[in-house]
């Protein structure tokens, strides 16, 4: 369908030093604090991290969907859909016509709660047809046919009848399939999936993940997948971005991250995944402490109070640098910065 996208310099989406803050009465919350990542054409990039680490806000910043009192205060989000110069989405007015055309047309988004993401007052079909007609010059009948095709593509049985269904008449998995159909309605170049399986039961989760992977293989679109589920990451990711408290702590290819994690946080995260046959009397390894509230960030490396390898006098003083640790890999930790810690023999 869109396999023949022209090759261009640079990745499809490049986020560079993005900072999104919420200016609340209690103080400023630095939800996203200098995040850099890129999504290559045709690839799936997974953003992982605990709740409240800024994954979703990063995703919403891309489409200018950050709610009041949040605002993008710095950084660039470069969008290279094809020919022409890249568009900086961070600088684009969220209410502009250009942004409106990008939303749903070039970049689509699938959300966490499929039931709540569909209006209960309108039929599934009307919302799907709306998405099609907003971006494609199709008449009512053509849009209807395309909508039925889309529902069939996402695996909804008897799609003709389902067009007239309301969200509360469908299961959560079916609603998420509808949301995916809406997202794919105009053949976007990038699909942002913000924890699309969190609200679903486990078997449905697996089906939705398979569906997304198949659809991506068919269409050649890129995917930015937000999740906290490392199992999902292993299944679909090409590249992984690990976030902690609004910053990217490590990024790299999925195999490298899983087999050779560098950052202490990534290691701790992978260590806390329960394993089959690990022994019945074995306690599950956890990361000690809790994620601090973003308005209450520790000085220096945000992870140092919970880090087993923290270097006193270094990690609690200065921000760690982003250190390249291999081709296409970075870790934001002083352990890999030879200038900062001279052979301290940690780990």
């Amino acid at each position, binding site marked *: 369908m869109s396999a023949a996208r022209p090759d261009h310099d640079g990745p499809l989406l490049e986020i560079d030093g993005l900072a999104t803050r919420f200016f609340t009465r209690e103080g400023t919350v630095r939800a996203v604090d200098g995040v850099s990542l890129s999504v290559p054409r045709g690839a799936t990039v997974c953003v992982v991290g605990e709740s409240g680490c800024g994954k979703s806000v990063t995703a919403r910043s891309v489409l200018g969907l950050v709610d009041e009192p949040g605002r993008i205060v710095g950084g660039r989000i470069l969008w290279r859909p094809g020919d022409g110069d890249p568009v900086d989405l961070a600088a684009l007015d969220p209410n502009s016509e250009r942004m409106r055309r990008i939303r749903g047309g070039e970049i689509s988004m699938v*959300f966490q709660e499929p039931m709540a993401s569909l209006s209960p007052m309108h039929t599934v079909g009307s919302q799907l047809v709306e998405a099609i007609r907003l971006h494609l010059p199709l008449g009512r009948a053509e849009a209807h046919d395309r909508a039925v095709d889309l529902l069939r593509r996402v695996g909804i049985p008897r799609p003709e009848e389902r067009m007239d269904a*309301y969200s509360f008449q469908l299961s959560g998995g079916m609603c998420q399939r509808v949301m995916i159909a*809406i997202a794919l309605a105009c053949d976007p170049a990038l699909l942002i999936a913000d924890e699309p399986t969190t609200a679903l039961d486990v078997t449905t989760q697996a089906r939705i993940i398979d569906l997304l992977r198949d659809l991506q293989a068919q269409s050649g679109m890129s995917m930015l997948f937000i999740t906290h589920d490392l199992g999902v990451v292993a299944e679909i990711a090409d590249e992984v971005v690990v976030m902690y408290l609004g910053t990217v702590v490590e990024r790299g290819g999925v195999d490298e991250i899983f087999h050779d994690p560098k950052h202490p946080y990534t290691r701790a995260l992978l260590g806390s995944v329960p394993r089959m046959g690990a022994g019945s009397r074995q306690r599950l390894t956890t990361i000690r402490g809790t994620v601090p509230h973003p308005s209450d960030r520790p000085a220096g490396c945000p992870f140092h109070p919970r880090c087993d390898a923290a270097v006193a006098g270094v990690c609690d003083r200065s921000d760690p640098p982003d250190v390249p640790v291999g081709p296409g890999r970075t870790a934001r930790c002083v352990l890999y910065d030879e200038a900062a810690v001279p052979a301290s023999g940690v780990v």
Partner: protein
Amino acid sequence: MLTFIARRCLFMVPTLFAISVVAFVIIQLPPGDYLTTMVTRLEAEGQQVDEAMLEGLRERYGLGRPVHEQYLAWMSGIVQGDFGQSFEYGTSVSSLIADRLPLSIVLTVSTLLATWLIAFPIGLYSAVRQYSAGDYLATMIGFLGLAVPNFLIALGLMYVMHTVFGYSVGGLFSPEYRDAPWSVAKLGDLAAHLWIPIVVLGTAGTAGLIRILRANVLDEVRKPYVVAARARGVPERRLVLKYPLRVALNPFVSTVGWVLPALLSGEVIVASVLNLPTTGPLLLGALRSQDMYLAGSIILIVSVLTVVGTLLSDILLAWLDPRVRLGYR
């Protein structure tokens, strides 16, 4: 949908029966009856009361009979369309009500329309531009309108209109048109008088509606389905009108049926203050003089209209909201 309406209509039968009993009990509650009131008044005027004439009246109106017989006599009359006689006015209750009902309807409906026309845009603006100067202004006026009693607004408006403009605002017609037959000039005269009760009666309702609509829209605009619609590129103006406003309409539709009872009994005090020829003051007068057939009939009609209005609201709501229509669990 049809079974829904049929079931709702069936539920209405016992409700209506209960209402008729309650209405009758209310009429009987005060000690004495219309004749005692009449005797007291005549004695206060220093007139002799003829015991034989009283007995005759009591016999004629059935006031001496047991309570349940009085109820049955009353109800069987109503079923045949006869609401009985008004003691005080000496005419039939139906003709008294029919006399005043058209103007009540005109007043209530135009007040409702004015309220909605003003409240909808302001409430929506207030929600979409939350915490803007316009929102604060609307909020301030809204709370003032809610807090000041209607009759006070009526008195204030009458005073200002009279002293500043030398313009009498009582009633719905100028004296020369009051008993004149209907004509274009009389209609114009009505329109010239009507806006004052509309303003007085509409302020509280408008203020309340603005607050309700603002709160409802604000509740809805942060819902995931609105964000999802925005994320698929729906333009902002169309987004607000199509999605959150649609849900925010529910409370309006659920209460639109209350207009029906308000046709008869709405705003008794304001109507008395402004000397409006509507049914509200009629009810008040009938209650004061224990004019039992008149008062009972008005209470009964108001109650029945409430039940019918609620049914209409429910049907409208089911038509508007698929969750009601299709049984959302």
